[in-house]
């Protein structure tokens, strides 16, 4: 790459002292050779490379994990920008934007946009790809993204990104803030002999004669992430997609995006929507369109779209027509919330057609709850379209030589859910099966781990220079940079006028108002700092949550201490929330910037501490997830240690008889156990528990209680895979007293014995979705279907009833649900408030679909109970300093922009989460994907020689500290301790070696500031948030 020869990389690296690493590792064999290679300086090994085909959210996450652990990535996408469908989703775009920019600026990433792979040859470790690069007609290297060509272009065409709701120019950006930030020309639409763009371009970047070119790249492994194809409902005339008041859910996302500006939900004809119907399962659960599967995500996104619409206009009348609500985790709350707060109605009916009645759209449906036929008019209908395999998948499969499954997705096995049929080629995201963003990103990290294992010997971590507290000297010379954020800010706030206000502020040496994107802003900062000798930088744009780290890194590159950078949020806090009042937005923006400038003057340069990394991983829990994680880490040459509480490995899988693919679970388990036994890099402690954790990310010390003694282990990262256990519903339906009332896991054992009873009734949601446990167990419907099918297989005459509410067989499970019905399993539906009753002989249920009581005389009652967290999950959470939800499941760092994008990262740095312990139980393939994914996340940490510790943390003034210990008791992270201070004190005469206690802050400090606010003697303060910095901000607006 061109940027490789920067002076920074010549600087001698600060590598971990070899001795320390060796000592730090927990056990036996020393993979020293491997470790050395991973930290090799530039140029000694050829850097391993991966081709990621498809630049949507999954591809982006895979690419980031790979470059972050020392590999090179070619990211190939058909579109003019990376970002995929996620960049079209109103609520999600802010999550993916920073990731896109991070990729764009990473020298180890090569973006090949408008490109398609035309051939793949070779085998794992050495694939050769031919890539056809379609002409952009704009030179990516020359273009500055100034957009003058777009201004000059005379021809408008419908904008596909907005589904034709708006127009674009023939030469235009594919959407706001694309990556790369270069427009493309839809050459077929150019007016004859028009060369307006060529004329205005000052960079000589327009190349109207561009032709398709071919590129060849060589890589060690390949990740396929082509995403999905949204179902096109226009093939059905009866859904009237031609009517402007009928839109698809993706179009509705764009409407919501536009509404963010006006605050009004406008229909394509310009009028305001008042009554909306959402119709679910359009193109899903329907073999007529070749998709019998459930698309998994539509229930969730529909609830969110309804919520956003209702937030815009609380008077909106919204109905959602559904078959089974399949939302899990946080999304369950959305469903409840929209019902309670906005009166959104859920009606269980699959609406067959839309009837045009003048301006209105009429839906005729059967309302089973009220047992009546209804004709109802709406003024907007949203079709919740499903996910199909991408159009390109067939061709991609042929080129790569990989197999597809019977549903048209890339074929994988249960225990290798990222591995295609060709070694070295992996899959992630919705090309594997329909899945939500959170699963796509887990899968993407998993695929990164798999792809990295092929080239683990070719890891190349580039050294960077340490950050020291220099360069803040002299009078503040502040540069203020105002970003327009496409038109997102400048559409509301007059940026040029704002600039003239800012110029007059004290200490402001330079103001720039030219940037329309983050990349522009970065360029502007880069050149102005040099040219004008600036020593502090203020950026007024979006929220610091998204881009602060990115810009801090930039400052570091250009010689400004990253803590002398300050952001003013004039997008979310001004332009977006005050879109209806530009004057107020302007005034507020001016004040926020004034505050930032005042604060910037008082900022201190800080030294960033580096902690040497211990390159091994502790895996907590030896179930399928933990075993996968350990194997994955070991495959890349690093040591792991599994700590398992039980006698042996395997977790819940030990209690399962047969898997959904028909194999015995024990076969799968012995395969995994065998691999672990073989690995010299994996140590297993059974009947053991982690009882204490000290240190911080990169350098932890754990105390493990093993039978009869304790062991101290050192490791750089922790993967938490402690799983969950089946809830035992003592007392419910006589469970615990009646021998024929069992749980699903217990029923598996009975099935192993080959029983063939006359009648079996399964009852769903026992102990779930009630007052005590509000959550859906997520996997229980699938488990019931699996076991019902197994019973019907071995004993076809047995009558099987499943008594439940919604049947939540998402994704591929839908086809098993269909099969179960086909084999004669009867599903009955009851109201959450009218649970079935059992008198010891007769099981009675009020069936909602027939509105009458059904009585069954079962030989067995099987209770489908949810998985619940292990009883000690709160203790584990406390030791690891991670958060739990109301039930004791671990939760990820739920802060934007990380939420969904990094579902496996806990709020505690260096601690990663996977499997059923993490926020709702998971199926086996999902556990494996997360186990691999968590390994990839841990590898990004332990493959580096050191970690940098956040410097905006607490500091103690020992002079003032009275050693009262208040800070110790309030710190939620266990980061403060008291230590003994020995000093000479002069109190009515000199006292030598006087002892007193003072507070000491460790690397676990997160900079939350609790200690500083509680400290009675003002001895505690937080770097970067000193009193004088905050007061300076307050003073300028008071």
């Amino acid at each position: 790459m061109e940027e490789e020869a920067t002076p920074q990389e010549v600087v001698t690296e600060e590598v971990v002292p070899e001795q320390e690493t060796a000592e730090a590792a927990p056990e036996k064999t020393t993979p020293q050779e491997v470790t050395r290679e991973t930290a090799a300086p530039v140029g000694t090994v050829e850097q391993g490379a991966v081709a990621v085909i498809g630049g949507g959210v999954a591809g982006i996450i895979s690419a980031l994990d790979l470059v972050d652990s020392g590999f090179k990535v070619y990211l190939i996408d058909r579109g003019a920008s990376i970002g995929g469908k996620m960049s079209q989703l109103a609520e999600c775009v802010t999550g993916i934007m920073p990731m896109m920019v991070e990729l764009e600026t990473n020298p180890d990433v090569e973006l090949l946009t408008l490109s398609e792979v035309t051939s793949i040859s070779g085998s794992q470790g050495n694939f050769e790809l031919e890539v056809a690069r379609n002409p952009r007609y704009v030179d990516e290297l020359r273009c500055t993204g100034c957009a003058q060509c777009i201004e000059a272009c005379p021809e408008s065409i419908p904008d596909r990104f907005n589904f034709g709701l708006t127009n674009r120019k023939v030469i235009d950006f594919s959407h706001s803030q694309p990556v790369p930030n270069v427009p493309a020309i839809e050459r077929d639409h150019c007016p004859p002999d028009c060369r307006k763009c060529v004329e205005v371009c000052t960079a000589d970047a327009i190349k109207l004669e561009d032709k398709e070119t071919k590129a060849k790249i060589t890589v060690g492994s390949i990740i396929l992430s082509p995403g999905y194809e949204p179902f096109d409902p226009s093939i059905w005339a009866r859904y009237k997609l031609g009517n402007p008041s009928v839109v698809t859910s993706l179009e509705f996302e764009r409407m919501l995006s536009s509404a963010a500006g006006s605050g009004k939900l406008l229909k394509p004809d310009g009028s305001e929507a008042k009554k909306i119907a959402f119709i679910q399962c359009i193109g899903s659960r329907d073999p007529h369109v070749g998709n019998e599967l459930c698309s998994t995500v539509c229930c969730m996104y529909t609830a969110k779209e309804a919520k956003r619409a209702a937030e815009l206009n609380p008077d909106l009348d919204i109905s959602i027509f559904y078959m089974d609500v399949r939302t899990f985790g946080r999304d369950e709350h959305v469903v409840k919330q929209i019902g309670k707060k906005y009166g959104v109605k859920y009606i269980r009916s699959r609406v067959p057609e839309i009837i045009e009645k003048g301006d209105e759209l009429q839906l005729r449906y059967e309302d089973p709850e009220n047992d009546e036929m209804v004709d109802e008019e709406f003024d907007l209908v949203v079709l919740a379209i499903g996910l199909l395999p991408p159009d390109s998948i067939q061709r991609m499969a042929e080129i790569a030589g990989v197999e597809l499954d019977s549903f048209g997705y890339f074929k994988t096995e249960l225990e290798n859910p990222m591995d295609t049929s060709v070694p070295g080629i992996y899959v992630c995201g919705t090309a594997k099966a329909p899945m939500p963003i959170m699963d796509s990103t887990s899968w993407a990290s998993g695929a990164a781990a798999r792809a990295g294992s092929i080239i683990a010997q070719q890891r190349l971590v580039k050294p960077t220079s340490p950050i020291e507290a220099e360069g803040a000297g002299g009078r503040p010379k502040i540069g203020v940079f105002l970003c327009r954020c496409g038109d997102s800010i400048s559409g509301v706030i007059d940026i040029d006028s704002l600039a003239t206000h800012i110029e007059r502020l004290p200490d402001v040496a330079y103001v720039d108002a030219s940037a329309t994107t983050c990349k522009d802003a970065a360029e502007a900062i880069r050149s102005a700092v040099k040219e004008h000798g600036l020593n502090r930088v203020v950026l007024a744009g979006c929220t610091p949550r998204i881009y602060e780290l990115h810009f801090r890194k930039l400052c570091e590159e250009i010689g400004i201490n990253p803590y002398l950078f300050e952001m003013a949020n004039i997008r979310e806090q001004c332009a977006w929330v005050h879109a209806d009042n530009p004057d107020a937005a302007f005034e507020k923006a001016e004040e926020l910037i004034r505050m930032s400038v005042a604060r910037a003057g008082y900022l201190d340069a800080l030294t960033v501490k580096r902690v040497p990394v211990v390159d091994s991983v502790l895996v907590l829990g030896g179930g399928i997830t933990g075993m996968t994680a350990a194997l994955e880490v070991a495959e890349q040459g690093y040591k792991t240690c599994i700590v398992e509480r039980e006698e042996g490995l395997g977790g819940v899988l030990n209690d399962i008889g047969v898997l959904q693919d028909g194999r015995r679970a024990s076969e799968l388990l012995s395969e995994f156990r065998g691999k672990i036994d073989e690995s010299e890099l994996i140590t297993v402690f059974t009947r053991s528990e982690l009882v204490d954790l000290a240190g911080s990310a990169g350098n932890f010390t754990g105390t493990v209680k093993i039978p009869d003694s304790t062991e101290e282990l050192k490791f750089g990262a922790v993967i938490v895979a402690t799983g969950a256990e089946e809830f035992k519903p003592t007392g419910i339906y006589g469970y615990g007293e009646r021998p024929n009332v069992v749980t699903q896991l217990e029923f598996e054992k009975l099935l192993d014995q080959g029983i063939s009873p006359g009648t079996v009734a399964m009852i769903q949601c026992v102990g779930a979705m009630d007052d005590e446990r509000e959550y859906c167990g997520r996997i229980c419907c699938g488990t019931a279907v699996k076991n019902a099918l197994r019973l019907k297989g071995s004993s076809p005459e047995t009558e099987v009833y499943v008594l439940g509410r919604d049947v939540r067989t998402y994704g591929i499970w839908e086809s098993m649900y269909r099969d179960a019905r086909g084999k004669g399993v009867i599903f009955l539906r009851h109201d959450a408030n009218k649970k079935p009753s059992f008198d010891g002989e007769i099981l009675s249920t009020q069936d909602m679909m027939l509105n009458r009581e059904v009585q069954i005389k079962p030989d067995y009652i099987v209770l489908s109970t949810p998985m619940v967290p292990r009883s000690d999950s709160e203790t584990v959470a406390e030791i690891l300093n991670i958060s739990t939800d109301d039930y004791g499941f671990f939760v990820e760092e739920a802060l934007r922009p990380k939420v969904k994008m990094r579902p496996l990262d806990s709020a505690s740095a260096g601690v990663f989460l996977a499997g059923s312990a993490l926020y709702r139980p998971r199926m086996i393939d999902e556990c494996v994907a997360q186990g691999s994914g968590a390994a990839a996340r841990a590898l990004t940490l332990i493959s580096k020689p050191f970690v940098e510790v956040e410097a905006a943390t607490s500091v103690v003034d020992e002079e003032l500290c009275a050693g009262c210990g208040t800070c110790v008791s309030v710190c939620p992270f266990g980061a403060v301790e008291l230590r003994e201070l020995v000093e000479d004190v002069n109190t009515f005469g000199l006292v030598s070696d006087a002892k007193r206690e003072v507070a000491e802050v460790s690397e676990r400090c997160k900079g939350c500031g609790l200690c500083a606010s509680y400290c009675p003697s003002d001895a505690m303060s937080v770097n970067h948030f000193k009193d004088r910095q905050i007061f300076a901000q307050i003073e300028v607006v008071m």
Partner: protein
Amino acid sequence: MEFVDEIIETGGPILGSEHMETLRVCMQCGKCTGGCPSGRLTAIRTRKMILSALLNMRDEVLSSDELWLCTTCYTCYERCPRNVKVTDITRTIRNIAGREGYLAKSHRMAASYVIKTGHGVPINDAVKESRKKLGLSEIPPTTHAYKDALKGIQTLAKKTKFDELIDFDWETMNLKE
């Protein structure tokens, strides 16, 4: 035998058992009922009828009036997202109901016209007019044109005991009262 199996076995020899087995996979989405043209005017609730059959509610289903409200337009059959062959299943259930003496009077009337004229719906002036417009012969080449063929149909009705099934009175050439 369970009612579900009876339906599948009854329809199987004519329609194929795979065709009939689709009855089981119904997931109760209600798309059939919501789009039923007959249901716009009548009390037919196709979804509930299918569920009742699945729950082996034989007497209720066979004796219900709504069983006879289906016009066999095949809309539900075409649209069913589980490919349940709804209309054919309904017709099979009617066959069973007929055997059990539950034939609706309107259907017996239509059947009597088959014996009387060779047509469930005999030709009328409007149809004759339409046929002329389309360039067809005014009278179709059926029993309307070949009166002798009607004898054959009546023989068949007797041999298959179709006449007994619908309670046909050869003396009055009408349904028995």
